[in-house]
């Protein structure tokens, strides 16, 4: 029997997954904070409790995500690029492209038939088109971020959002609200803008079908729909897309 764990410290959330004999046995998602190591430990503890195991029985821990260097109890550190690829390969080995949109970055990863990363591309310069971007816009619209997806699906069309700079887009959103544009249309416009940016990245790396999506933003069906429309293909989303990086890390810890 093998028991391993993966810890993924992102800019907004910290995720932990425990894997027993190659199958997920426990998972936890906590809000990231200043004490990265403490939160990572707490997340791991919660995941272990779900799995009904103690930390002493773990055979290995891999840390990933932006804060991977701040997990003192991990034996190895692997980038989220490789971990998301590994996690998706575990679920759907036939997937060739992974779109991961997290709190502060977005990436498109190409996989080979063995689940190995063939190529990848990440967003440049700023957080435009990431979870943080959507969170700021949700704040400007006074809509809970987790409800943005449902809102956008009520809209027949999306408003035009020309700027992807978080600050400029926020003022654009405020202007659209002042003009009386329905909130649903604004949100759909924001989702379309995110999709256009991510699809440009996918084209840069030469995306291939089938496509899967991971990361917290994949929980937003509005973004997934916009991406599907822009790419012209369907996108597979795992039941909990936010923990795929941690799942991949736990699988990589097997050895």
């Amino acid at each position: 029997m093998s028991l391993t764990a993966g810890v993924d410290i992102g800019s907004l959330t910290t995720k932990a997954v425990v894997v027993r004999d190659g199958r997920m046995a426990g998972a936890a998602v906590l809000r990231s904070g200043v004490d990265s190591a403490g939160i990572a430990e707490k997340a791991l503890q919660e995941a272990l409790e779900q799995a009904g195991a103690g930390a002493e029985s773990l055979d290995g821990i891999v840390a990933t995500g932006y804060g991977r260097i701040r997990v003192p109890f991990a034996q190895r550190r692997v980038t989220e690029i490789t971990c998301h690829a590994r996690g998706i390969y575990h679920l759907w080995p036939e997937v060739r492209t992974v779109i991961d949109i997290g709190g502060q970055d977005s990436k498109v990863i190409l996989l080979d038939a063995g689940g190995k990363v063939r190529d990848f591309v990440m967003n440049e310069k700023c957080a435009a088109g990431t979870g943080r971007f959507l969170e700021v816009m949700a704040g400007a619209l006074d809509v809970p971020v987790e409800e943005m997806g449902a809102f956008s699906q009520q809209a027949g069309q999306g408003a035009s959002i020309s700027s992807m700079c978080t600050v400029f887009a926020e003022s654009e959103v405020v202007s659209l609200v002042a003009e009386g544009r329905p909130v649903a249309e604004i949100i759909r416009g924001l989702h379309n803008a995110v999709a256009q940016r991510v699809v440009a990245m996918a084209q840069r790396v030469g995306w291939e079908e089938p496509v899967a999506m991971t990361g917290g933003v994949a929980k937003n069906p509005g973004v997934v729909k916009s991406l599907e429309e822009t790419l012209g293909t369907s996108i597979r989303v795992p039941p909990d897309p936010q923990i795929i990086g941690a799942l991949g890390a736990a699988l990589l810890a097997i050895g």
Partner: protein
Amino acid sequence: MDIYQLLRSHLGNALRQRAFKSPWTYRLLRQAVAAQKKHYPWQAAHRLLLNTIDQAAAAFLQKGPVVWHNVFFPTEILYGLGVIPFAPEAAAVVATGLGIARGALRRAEGDWVSGEACSFHRLAHGCDREGYFPPPGAVVCSSHLCDTAPQSLETTAAYHGVPFYLLDVPHRQDAGALDYVARQLKSITFSLAKSLNLEWDGERFREALVNSNAARERLQAVNRLRQQRPACIRGEEAHSFIYPMLAGFGAATSVEVYGQLADELGRRYREQHRAVPEEKARLLWLHLRPYYPNAIFQLLEREAGAVVVFEEMSHVYWEPLDPEKPFYSLARKVLSHHGLAPMARRVEAVLAMVDAYQAGGVIHFAHWGCRQSTAGLRLLQDALRERGIPFLNLEGDCVDQSKYAPGATRTRLEGFLEMLI
């Protein structure tokens, strides 16, 4: 302690424009550097630094006419005329090392120099207007490879009220282009001599071309040694030797530096002195690198054992010059640059470098101001992918530290290394 730390610690906050104009600065600096000779892992690097100090002293103390040039202008002409060449882009790198970039970039911004323009030129503008650079007696510039240089340097020439000479390099490489460039080079040479009241010395001009050929030959010897495995010099160390490529061809000192480097490399290969304890991957580096403190090479070479075995800027792309036909030879050199359109030339050159240096991966540092180096990346990416060579386009800025995101850079590099190793 590297020389920049030394300078900062000795001059500290007193590092002011007047320090550059005092002969004492160069005397002290030279002595300090000379005293550290044995601490330099590469004596060629030590020699290069001393040469650079001497050249800076000559320019800042105005020991002769100072001619500013961009890094793609053939400097053989300047050494042949006996003037003091000064490359503002290269000086911008030194300014970054000295920690004066932030204030100079702010000055450029205040002068309406667009933040989207190349930061080498923004920084050079700021350093010049803040009085950190020696005033030019004339400015020469080539139009090829760098879009910002002609406008930036023409503005500088106007600011100082000195003549500006533009070498207009066409994108084609036929006989007409060769003739067109050669005629301009001749005209610029004699116009410079006239405007600066220089006495024409045919033997000196010839010697500059002979020096250029000798430096080329020694650089080729260096490059042949770098093709062997395992690597005996880390990319981080080798990168400092591109300076003569950008500002030193035509000078006897460049012959010495490359000659000494070839000797040292040869000795290290014979002694099987490895660049890193275990060479896990060999990388080719395209374009330049960031010059402010950063962890890129530390991560690649020392932590991961992925050695940058060659950098594009050290590629010898031209044939030897004919001292009997200086202007035609130099025109041919200018037109031979693999970065000059069409993109297929650069792709072909990069693939040849991958083969020659046995590189298993390629990193392209996409300096944000360099539009010319980013436009054809799709072709390069496709060609490398066809050969199964992983490629990373690393976006960033060579001299503007405010654009450096350590965490994001680390993730891209580590993700790339995970593909390779």
